[in-house]
């Protein structure tokens, strides 16, 4: 459950997101749709605190995002970045396993989980070590 309450963000005095309020229910599939430059990415990036909030409150699972360490918060939120979202110097498996490794999972569990994830999205068997 994500709640956005009266959130504002401005750059140089010009509001990009102006007192936005919305809530997304748990398990809901939500699309933010809007013209270019209307603040979609800014809103999303405020949720995982890549951009600081000027005013208002964002709660994820009932918890104010500003009360959680930013890194810990981000590790809980899946975030696929625009254009390049992969580390070019890592294998596919390393890329999939980024967050589990950050969370200090056991190696076997990381491998198991990333292979399962790869199978979910790919019908063909693929070589994760590339």
């Amino acid at each position, binding site marked *: 459950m994500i709640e956005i309450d009266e959130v504002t963000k401005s750059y140089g005095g010009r509001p990009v997101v102006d007192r936005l309020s919305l809530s997304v229910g748990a398990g809901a599939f939500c699309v933010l749709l809007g013209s270019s430059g209307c603040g979609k990415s800014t809103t999303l990036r405020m949720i995982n605190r890549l951009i600081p909030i000027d005013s208002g409150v964002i709660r994820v699972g009932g918890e104010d995002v500003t009360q959680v360490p930013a890194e810990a918060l981000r590790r809980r939120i899946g*975030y696929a970045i625009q254009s390049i979202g992969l580390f070019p110097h890592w294998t596919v498996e390393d890329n999939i396993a980024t967050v589990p490794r*950050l969370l200090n999972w056991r190696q076997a569990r990381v491998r198991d989980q990333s292979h399962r994830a790869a199978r979910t999205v790919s019908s063909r068997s693929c070589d994760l070590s590339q």
Partner: protein
Amino acid sequence: MSDLAGYLARGGRIRLAASAEFVESPSALPSFEATYGFRLSGDQLLTLSGGNTAATLRAAAEAMSGVNAAMAYGTDGAIAALGLTALEDDKGAQVVYAPAPGCPRSGAAAAPRDRKAARSGFRHLDARNAPAAQCRDRRRRRGCRRCRGGLSEIEALLAVTSARGRIGIHNRVLLTLMVAGTVAVAVAGFVSYAPNRLLSGQPITLWEAASGPAVAGIGLLGAMLLAAAFISPGKTAVLCPGGAGGGLAPARAGRRRAGGERPVARRETRRPHLARHRILDPRCMRRARHCRRAAARSVPARWHSSSTAGAIVAGVAALAVAGIFDALSIAREYASRRLLFADALSRHVALVAGSVGLAVVIGFPLGVVAARSPRLQSPLFADPQSTADHSVDRPLRAADRAALGVGGSLPQLAAIGVGGIGVAPAIIALVLYALLPVVRNTAVGLAGVDRAVIEAGRGMGLTSRQIFRQVELPLALPVLLAGLRIVTVQAIGLAVVAALIGAGGLGTFVFEGLGQYAVDLVLLGALPAIFLALAADFLLQTLSAVLRRHLAQ
């Protein structure tokens, strides 16, 4: 094409969609016009600034803006699928781009099936069946039934072999060296003989100096080297098939070389419009990535040349140990300075290692800071010219003077070795000289890391320290190592001058030799310095290649 020329001569209507390059390049449309005897006016052409085959094909297929003909590249099944007819270049106005199977060695080894498919496929690939070759794959995926292809999908990378005359002058440097060497041996004598280093030597020709078999051996070696200058190294350019990025255009391949049963491609593989397509086409991007990985997995070509070089060096060293060269003047100089030489060499290496190490220790953090805050960059790199363009010894002298001043006014510093002469000022000077490349390469390397990748790391919850160590540093590493290489090689050369201020090293022999007019003594200092620089360069280059391969996997 002849039919088209006839059609045009009868006043037939045409509007050709083509790229600007096709219209303007002398080897393209003008070549067709000259060969077939027609001329297209401005309003018969629809010129697109890019070479987008998809756009021209579509324009022709849908008769957009009155277009009824199109220039298209590629082996694309779209030509058949859109109901278009490929015009045959029956008079051979065009150079032929025919595909040849090939793959980086390791890539082929990784997928022998693909290599086999590519081979069997290309044996039969020509202008008629090339579109179908790709279309068969499409039929599997999209239910296209227009094509009757007989080829399997070609996943292997293609290489276009350069066939522009395999015999010709390919290595001008080698040729020049060999000609000069031959003339020198024939006219000026092979060696010169002097009873001691003060007298100038008497030239001795090769015939007098060596026995018959040795002369024959040297002659044979020379002939082989000379021949090497004329033989093509057999370059291949890797191209990607698929989509508009085909670039091989067998659909236009009308002309074959007389008598050649294998299709031969002319060299013109780096055409910019094709490069654009290859970048844009996602399939090709995937292949390019595969290709890079294959190349990264493969043993670098450098290894082959380096093993040859290693064998030569080992051979020469073995001969030297066996005493073959003992009569040479440089060996004589060495013999009389055996202990000094070992000392000077180790001192030289120590000077270089110490100064480069210090420069890295100081310069790396500075570079990181510079990359972090652009404001700091301008004072750090305030006047690159003044540092970079100095003659070799000026910074040394400047540092020398500075150290002298400091050592003179602060006896404590002088007590620990910072004085006017000796190792400390030499190291200070070398460090100062090495600092700029280290700082700059660090800053440039780190700044060159894609912001989006760092952003991705942040988004996934990496701390800034983790981003630096796991993302930025490995990605910037090639540039950092390049800086280290430059600095090391530069320091090896520069440390020779350090002998002037009593720091020792190989320069000792150089300046001693200069003082005594003993060229061979100069060589005893200069040649090892050169070999040291080459060896360091090679080692760091190899290290860089290994690390890059490691990172690519």
